[in-house]
C-alpha cells in the first residue's frame, strides 16, 4: 500500500518531448534599462507640463467629464450622448485626484495633465516590452522607447489630456499580451479584454485590433492551442466590449427614438453625418493644416515612421506593429474623412516600434561581426542619422521645456477666481478649458455654461428663460471665437458685451466680457 507515499504531481510523459521555448523572461537588465529610460522620458514630459503646449478645448472637455464621474454626476456634466465611449475619462477620474492634491492652485486643465504621466509611463514601458517580444535587440528596444518618448511631437501630444493616450496604452498592452512568450490561454483572453478596454476608451483604436490578431496568429503558430487562443481573445473582446451597448440598453438608450439620445443614433451621426475635414492633399483643407502642424513639431518620426512601416511589412516579426501603423496612416490620408487633432497620438508608438525594428533588422542583415567596413557603414549611418535628428529634437524639446503658452489662461482663471464679485449667483459662459476652474472657484455648477451648449442643448437653453439676457459674463477665448456663424446666441453675447479684462495678445487674447443686458 502506498499510504506513506507522498502525493506527487504527475503528468504522463510526452510522446516526443517538445523542447520548451527558451525562457524569454526579461532579465534584470531589461527591467533597469526600460525603467531608467522611462524615468528620463517622464522627467522631460513632466518638466513645464503646465506651460506647454497651449491647453485645448478637448482637454477641458475630458477633464470636466472625469470630474462629473468623480462627483457621481453620471458620465458627463451635460447629457451624455454617446459621442465617445466613456471608459477613458472614467480612468481619468481614477487618476485625476492626484493633480488636485499636488497642485490645487494651478489651472485645472494644466494640472490635470499630471494625471497623464502614469499613462505615458505605461505606454513607454510597453513599447519596450513589445519591442523585446518582437525579438529586437536591447539597444533597438531602447531606441524605440526613446523615439516614442523624446520626439517633440510625442512630447507635445503625450502631455495633453487625450482619450487616445489611454486607448493606445491599452492597445499596446493587448499587443504585448498577444506576444506573450508563454502563450498562455489567459494572456490571450486578457489581450481580448485589453483590446475591448482600448476601444471603449477611444473607438478609433478598433482600427489597430487586426495588428493584435496578426501578433497572436504568428505567436501561436504551429501550436495545437491556436484555436483556443482565438476563442479566448474573442471572449475577452466581445464580453468586455458588450458592456457598453448593454449600458445603453439598460438605460433605454440603445436605439434612436424621440426625446432621448441613443448609442446607435450617435454612431449614425458620426459615421454618416459628420462633415469631413478635407483631403490632406488639398492645401486649404483642415486635414492639410493639421498634418502640417504635426510635421512642424517633428518631421522625423512621421516621415521615418512611414518609410519604416512600408519596409517593416515585408519583415515577418515586424508585421503586427507595421499593420497597425499602415492602417492608421491610410485612414488619416484618405480623402474626405474627418481627422481629429489628436489622431496622431495613436500612430506614434507603432511608428517608434517599426523604426527601431527596421534599424535592428538592417543591422542584423549587415552582420558586421569582424568586417571593418561593415562597422564603418553602420557607424556612418548612425552618425548621419544622429546629426539629422538630434538638432531638430533638441530645438523642439527645449521649447517644450521652457515655453509658457498658457499664461493668458492662467491669468484669466485667477481673475475669475479673485476679481469677479458674487460668484454664487453669477451666470457665466466659458469654453471647456475654464469650466472646471470656474466650478472650483465657487461658481454654481449649473450657472457655468459651455458656450456651445447655449445653442445646441435644449436642456441648457431651458435654464435661461430670458435667453442671452440671463447671462452675466462671457469669457471670449480663441476656441469660442472660432466658429461664430453657427452659434447665434454666442454671437449675440459677444456683440452685446464689453470687455472688462483682457489677457494675452492679438488673436490668442482672452477677454472677460460683461453682458450689457439693456441693449436691444
Amino acid at each position, binding site marked *: 500500500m502506498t499510504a506513506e507515499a507522498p502525493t*506527487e504531481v*504527475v*503528468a504522463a*510523459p*510526452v510522446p516526443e518531448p*517538445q523542447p520548451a521555448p527558451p525562457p524569454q523572461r526579461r532579465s534584470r537588465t531589461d527591467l533597469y534599462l526600460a525603467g531608467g529610460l522611462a524615468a528620463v522620458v517622464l522627467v522631460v514630459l513632466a518638466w513645464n507640463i503646465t506651460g506647454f503646449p497651449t491647453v485645448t478645448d478637448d482637454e477641458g472637455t475630458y477633464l470636466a467629464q472625469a470630474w462629473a464621474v468623480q462627483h457621481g454626476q453620471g458620465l458627463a456634466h451635460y447629457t451624455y450622448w454617446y459621442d465617445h465611449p466613456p471608459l477613458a475619462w472614467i480612468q481619468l477620474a481614477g487618476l485625476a485626484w492626484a493633480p488636485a492634491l499636488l497642485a490645487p492652485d494651478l489651472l485645472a486643465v494644466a494640472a490635470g495633465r499630471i494625471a497623464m504621466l502614469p499613462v505615458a509611463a505605461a505606454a513607454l514601458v510597453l513599447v519596450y516590452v513589445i519591442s523585446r517580444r518582437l525579438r529586437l535587440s536591447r539597444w533597438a528596444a531602447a531606441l524605440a522607447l526613446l523615439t516614442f518618448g523624446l520626439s517633440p511631437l510625442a512630447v507635445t501630444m503625450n502631455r495633453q489630456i487625450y482619450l487616445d493616450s489611454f486607448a493606445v496604452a491599452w492597445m499596446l498592452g493587448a499587443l504585448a499580451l498577444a506576444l506573450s512568450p508563454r502563450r498562455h490561454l489567459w494572456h490571450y483572453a486578457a489581450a481580448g479584454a485589453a483590446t475591448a478596454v482600448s476601444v471603449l476608451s477611444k473607438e478609433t483604436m478598433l482600427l489597430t485590433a487586426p495588428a493584435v490578431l496578426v501578433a497572436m496568429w504568428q505567436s501561436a503558430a504551429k501550436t495545437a492551442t491556436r484555436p483556443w487562443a482565438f476563442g*479566448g481573445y474573442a471572449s475577452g473582446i466581445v464580453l468586455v466590449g458588450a*458592456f457598453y451597448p448593454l449600458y445603453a440598453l439598460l438605460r433605454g438608450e440603445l436605439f434612436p427614438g424621440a426625446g432621448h439620445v441613443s448609442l446607435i443614433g450617435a454612431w449614425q451621426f458620426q459615421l454618416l453625418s459628420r462633415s469631413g475635414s478635407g483631403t490632406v492633399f488639398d492645401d486649404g483643407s483642415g486635414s492639410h493644416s493639421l498634418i502640417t502642424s504635426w510635421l512642424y513639431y517633428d518631421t522625423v518620426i512621421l516621415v521615418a515612421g512611414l518609410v519604416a512601416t512600408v519596409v517593416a511589412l515585408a519583415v515577418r516579426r515586424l508585421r503586427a506593429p507595421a499593420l497597425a501603423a499602415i492602417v492608421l496612416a491610410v485612414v488619416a490620408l484618405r480623402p474626405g474623412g474627418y481627422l481629429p487633432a489628436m489622431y496622431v497620438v495613436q500612430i506614434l508608438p507603432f511608428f517608434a516600434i517599426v523604426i527601431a525594428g527596421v534599424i535592428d533588422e538592417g543591422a542584423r542583415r549587415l552582420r558586421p561581426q569582424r568586417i571593418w567596413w561593415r562597422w564603418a557603414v553602420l557607424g556612418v549611418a548612425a552618425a548621419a542619422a544622429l546629426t539629422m535628428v538630434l538638432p531638430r529634437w533638441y530645438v523642439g524639446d527645449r521649447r517644450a521645456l521652457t515655453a509658457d503658452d498658457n499664461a493668458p489662461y492662467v491669468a484669466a482663471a485667477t481673475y475669475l477666481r479673485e476679481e469677479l464679485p458674487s460668484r454664487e449667483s453669477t451666470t457665466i459662459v466659458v469654453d471647456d478649458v475654464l469650466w472646471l476652474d470656474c466650478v472650483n472657484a465657487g461658481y454654481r455648477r449649473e450657472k457655468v455654461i459651455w458656450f456651445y451648449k447655449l445653442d445646441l442643448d435644449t436642456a441648457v437653453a431651458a435654464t435661461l428663460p430670458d435667453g442671452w439676457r440671463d447671462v452675466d459674463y462671457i469669457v471670449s477665448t480663441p476656441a469660442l471665437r472660432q466658429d461664430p456663424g453657427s452659434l447665434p446666441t454666442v454671437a449675440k453675447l459677444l456683440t452685446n458685451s464689453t470687455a472688462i479684462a483682457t489677457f494675452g495678445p492679438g488673436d490668442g487674447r482672452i477677454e472677460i466680457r460683461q453682458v450689457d443686458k439693456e441693449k436691444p
Partner: protein
Amino acid sequence: MMVVSLVLAGFAAVTLWWTMHAWRTPETLASTRFAAPDGAHRLTFSLLVPARHEQAVLEHTVGRLLESTHEGFEIIVIVGHDDPETAEVAHRVAATAPGRILVVTDVNEQKNKPRALNTALPYCRGDVVGVFDAEDQVHPRLLEHVDHAFRATSADVVQGGVQLINFHSNWYSLHNCLEYFFWFRSRLHLHARKGFIPLGGNTVFVRTDVLRAANGWDGTCLAEDCDLGVRLSSRGAKVVVAYDSAIVTREETPGTLTSLLKQRTRWNQGFLQVYRKGEWRRLPGFGQRMLARYTLTQPFLQAFSGVVIPVGVGVAIWARLPVLVALITFVPVIPMAANLVFQVVGLRDFGLQYGLRTRWHHYARLVLGAFPYALVLAVAALRAVWREYTGRRNWELTAHTGAHLINLPAPAESGVAT
C-alpha cells in the same frame, strides 16, 4: 443581488479556469497525451466487466477486449445470479477463449456495480485491475499504452480517456459529449496534478495490491468510481491521467432524456455521498481539501448557477434596476458566455480529433441548447438532493457508510463449464 452576482461570477470563473486546464499553454496540452508505448508487455491485467441485463452488447464488448494486442490479460465477466440471459451469453463467450475469460456470479441480494466488482476482486490474478462497462468499445492497443504508462510513471492508478461519440443523435447528446470531452481531455489532468481525483467509472486501472489494501469498492456508494478515487487520493496514491483520442474508450449517451436524468441524478447523489462520507478530509494539503470540497459540490453549484445567472439577467433587464446594479448582474455572464465560446471551439476540436463532421447546425444547437441543458442538470441536481435527504438510495440503507468491505465469497465458475 450584487453579492450573489459576484459570487456566481467568481464560481463560474474558477470552473472555467479549471475546465480549460489542458489548453492553457501548448506545453500543458502536450503533457496530457498518452506516452507512446515501448512495445514491452511486462504487466498482467485482470479486466473486470460487470454486466447486468446487457446480453445484447456483452458479446461484442468482450470480443473487442479479446482483440487486445497485449499478451498478459484475463477477462472477468461478472453476472448476477438472477440474470440468466446475460449469464448465458457470458458463458458462451467464455467458452470461446478458455483460460482468458472467467465468469463470476454475484449472489448479493442487492445488485449494483461496486458489489459486482468486489465479488470479482478475489479472483483477480493480474498485477493490475481494469474496469470496463459492458457497452464499452475498447481500443485493442489500449492495454499496451496503459502497461507503458504504469511503468514509465510508476503510478498506482492510470485513468484512460472515455468519450461519448454520438453527438449528432439528439439535442442533449451534443452537450453530453462535450462534457465528457472537457472532463477527460482537460479537467481530470488538473485533478491528477493536484493530487485529488474522482476517478471515472471505466477504463480505470489500479494496481491490484493497492486496490486490495483499500478494500476495493464501496458497495453502498452510488458513485463508487468517484469514491475510490477520493480514497486512493487521500492515501497518497499516485494517479496518472492519459488521454489520446485514438485509443479512448467509446461510449454512447443515454438513449432518452429520462435515462440521462436518472444517470445524472445517480452521479450527483454519489458525489453527495462521497462528500458526506468525508474521506476527502484526510487529504494532506489544504488546497487539495478545498479542491475536493469544491469538486464534490460542483454539480450542485453548477446546476444552481446555470439557472440563476440567466434568470438574474432577465430580471436585470425587465425589472428596471439601477443601471450599476444591473450591470453587475451581468458580470457572471462573462465567464458563462466565455465557457460557451470555448465549447464552440471544443466542438470543432472534438470533430477534428474524432474525424467527425461538425456542421453549422451543430454549433447552433450547441448555443441554443445550452440553457435547456442547464435546466436538465439543475433538475438532476435537485432530484439528487431530494433523494439523498429522503433516504432513497435505491438499495439498502446502511448506517455505516464508511464501511467498504469485501462481500462474502461468491461461487465462481470457470469459463469452460456452462
